[in-house]
């Protein structure tokens, strides 16, 4: 079987490619060049997409002994991920660009090209399990689990994906990289968003969306408590950076409850007003069964990357997904994914996912 290993220049994808070789696949390494101008994406060891990373990936491919190429996906990445990221914030939502990159780039643009060129699958260094039963499960390393950002993948995409690292902890992967003589063994993990060079997301958005001053309004009293320079600077659940001109009438802390782009209003309220118990999602993907379930499914849902799973009942109807939470959760941001899992001793199984469109408070 011929497989294409996406190699970011980091330790995970290098070990994944090496394991794919050991597993008997005919492996070709590809580094995805995602920046229109490689210097502008984060430099140094932390990021992806830099010239340095391309070189690290090439060096790893040489050590493993596989052919290596660079594919230029800068334009696709820009329209599908970066522009989408900005547009989502402008629409008052909080997107997850890694998830979008998996959905639109790694397992779409890259996978489609790979298949057309005669490859059978794409290998990545994601920490998630995809075993013989072809079910997507959490990694054995809960701190590194990336099943959440893979849960958008359709059955068709998963059937052509290989994740060799899901059964290993990150520490194990690093040790193995050192054993294999891969120089990236102790390269620091990437964090944050690769295309936000300095990690300053509000600054990045301000550069693209400009200043858009508007009011910060208290949900309880309806009073204007302050002003903001752009609603895109806020995420539901956020407390820091509100810089209210005056305290709320009840004197208690305020959190962002919602963002209304039409009136450019940020609505704030007390912590308990953040609690939601019903989450609606759009563009659902269901991979647990060939057809979406007819009735409600008892499961757990995760509502943000690295969020705790919450018991819930999920149902699909009318092209949407609804999750009724067994206990209220605070700070659910539209634009993030709701991912349904079935707890399993062999690794919690991803059932499906959707993009959160609305969250209703407890008591509805």
């Amino acid at each position, binding site marked *: 079987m011929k497989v294409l290993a996406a190699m970011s220049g980091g330790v995970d994808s290098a070990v994944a490619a090496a394991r794919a070789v050991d597993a008997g696949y005919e492996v*070709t390494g590809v*580094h995805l*060049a995602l920046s229109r101008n*490689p210097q502008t994406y984060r430099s140094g060891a932390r990021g992806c997409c830099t*010239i340095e990373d*391309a*070189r690290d990936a*090439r060096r790893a491919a040489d050590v493993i002994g596989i*052919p290596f*190429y*660079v*594919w*230029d*996906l*800068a*334009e*696709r990445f820009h329209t599908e991920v970066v522009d989408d990221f900005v547009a989502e914030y402008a629409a008052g939502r909080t997107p997850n660009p890694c998830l979008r990159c998996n959905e639109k780039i790694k397992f779409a*643009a*890259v996978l*489609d*090209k790979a298949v*057309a*060129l*005669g490859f059978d699958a794409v290998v990545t260094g994601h920490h998630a399990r995809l075993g013989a039963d072809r079910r997507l499960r959490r990694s054995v390393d809960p701190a590194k689990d990336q099943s959440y950002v893979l849960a958008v993948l359709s059955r068709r995409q998963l059937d052509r994906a290989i994740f060799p690292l899901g059964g290993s902890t990150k520490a194990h992967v690093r040790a193995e990289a050192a054993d294999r003589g891969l120089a990236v063994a102790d390269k620091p993990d990437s964090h944050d968003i690769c295309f936000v060079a300095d990690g300053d997301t509000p600054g990045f958005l301000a550069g693209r969306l400009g200043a858009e001053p508007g009011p910060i309004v208290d949900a309880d009293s309806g009073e204007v408590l302050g002003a903001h320079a752009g609603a895109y600077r806020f995420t539901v659940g956020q407390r820091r950076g509100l810089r209210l001109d005056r305290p709320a009438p009840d004197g208690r802390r305020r959190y962002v409850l919602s963002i209304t782009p039409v009136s450019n209003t940020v609505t704030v309220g007390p912590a308990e007003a953040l609690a939601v118990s019903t989450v609606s999602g759009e563009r659902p993907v269901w991979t647990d069964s060939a057809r979406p379930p007819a009735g409600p499914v008892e499961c757990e849902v995760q509502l943000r990357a690295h969020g705790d799973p919450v018991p819930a009942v999920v149902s699909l109807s009318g092209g949407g997904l609804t999750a009724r939470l067994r206990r209220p959760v605070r700070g659910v941001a539209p634009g993030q994914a709701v991912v349904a899992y079935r707890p399993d001793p062999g690794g919690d199984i991803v059932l499906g996912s959707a993009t959160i469109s609305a969250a209703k408070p407890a008591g509805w």
Partner: protein
Amino acid sequence: MAYLDHAATTPMLPEALDAYVQVARELGNASSLHAPGRCARRRVEEARERIAAALGARPSEVVFTGGGTESDNLAVKGIFWARRAADPARTLVVASEVEHHAVHDAVGWLVEHEGARVTWLPVDGSGRVQVDAVRAVCQADGDQIALVTAMWANNEVGTVQPVSELAEIAASHRVPLHTDAIQAVGQVPVDFSASGVAALSVTGHKLGGPVGVGALLMGREVDCTPLLHGGGQERDVRSGTLDVPGVVAFSVAVEMAAKGQPEHAARLAALRDELVARVRAAVPNAVYNGDPEHRLPGNAHFSFPGCEGDALLLLLDAQGIACSTGSACSAGVAQPSHVLLAMGASEPAARSSLRFTLGHTSTRAEIEALAAALPAAVERARRAGPRA
């Protein structure tokens, strides 16, 4: 393996390799005054004479360098600096649009950092510099020109330029012309003094010598400011302890390449014509780029409509066939070739290209292997589409 990328680098000739190994055993810095030093210097000077004789230059006109890139940079920057120093009005560089990056980017650097101006010489659809354009710029701005640089033969599409004609025009305006003859030596006749150029770049690894050794042939009357300062080993224009075995092996390769040029060219041209015929038969809509007549005998360059050159390269590589898209990478990302764009190709056409180049080890079997692998690769690459 079918190695169809001799323009990137070609295997060392056995004679050059033997010379290298033999001299590498010897001790001596060619600048030292003692016996081992004298021995090394003798080797170097013999090599210089060999190269001069092979390329129609005087020994004193041979400046050894660390390869083609250095020769090009030394010629472009060094002559620019020296000419401008002598006459501050001379800040114009005239360069063809199809130069190798070693020239192209050196010119760009002068524009960005040294206040140079540039007139890019256009080429026609087959990649030939238009002689009238050179005449026009020399007539209009002759007293402002620092130098003209136009390559002898293009590394991507193999087009051979009318270098003597260009040099004559430049000389009649008392303007020095530099030519990058790195791809030309051994494939077409190259005679430095007969060509009338002021400076000529050549490198070892494109003609059967080692990598990292080259020369700039430069007339004694040409002023050139050094890039590398130090011991002044080479005519005070280039410093650095000479790589004696490299220089000797390089000279052996140059001598063989020049002496054997007619037979070598005839053999390559016959193989190349067969390659072209086989590719056309295998992929009827393949477009043969470049100049059919003024062309390096070892070069075949095609566009494959609807395919990405990168994808074809990957697929052929997987079948053991080594070729090139011919264009340079920026941060590992293939850029559409500035040469093809200058020839009037669209960006998709430029990105759909592959270069096959032959050399002294090329065989018919390699061409057969290409013809066998190409149809399936083209079909696959077409399915993958022009852009991911």
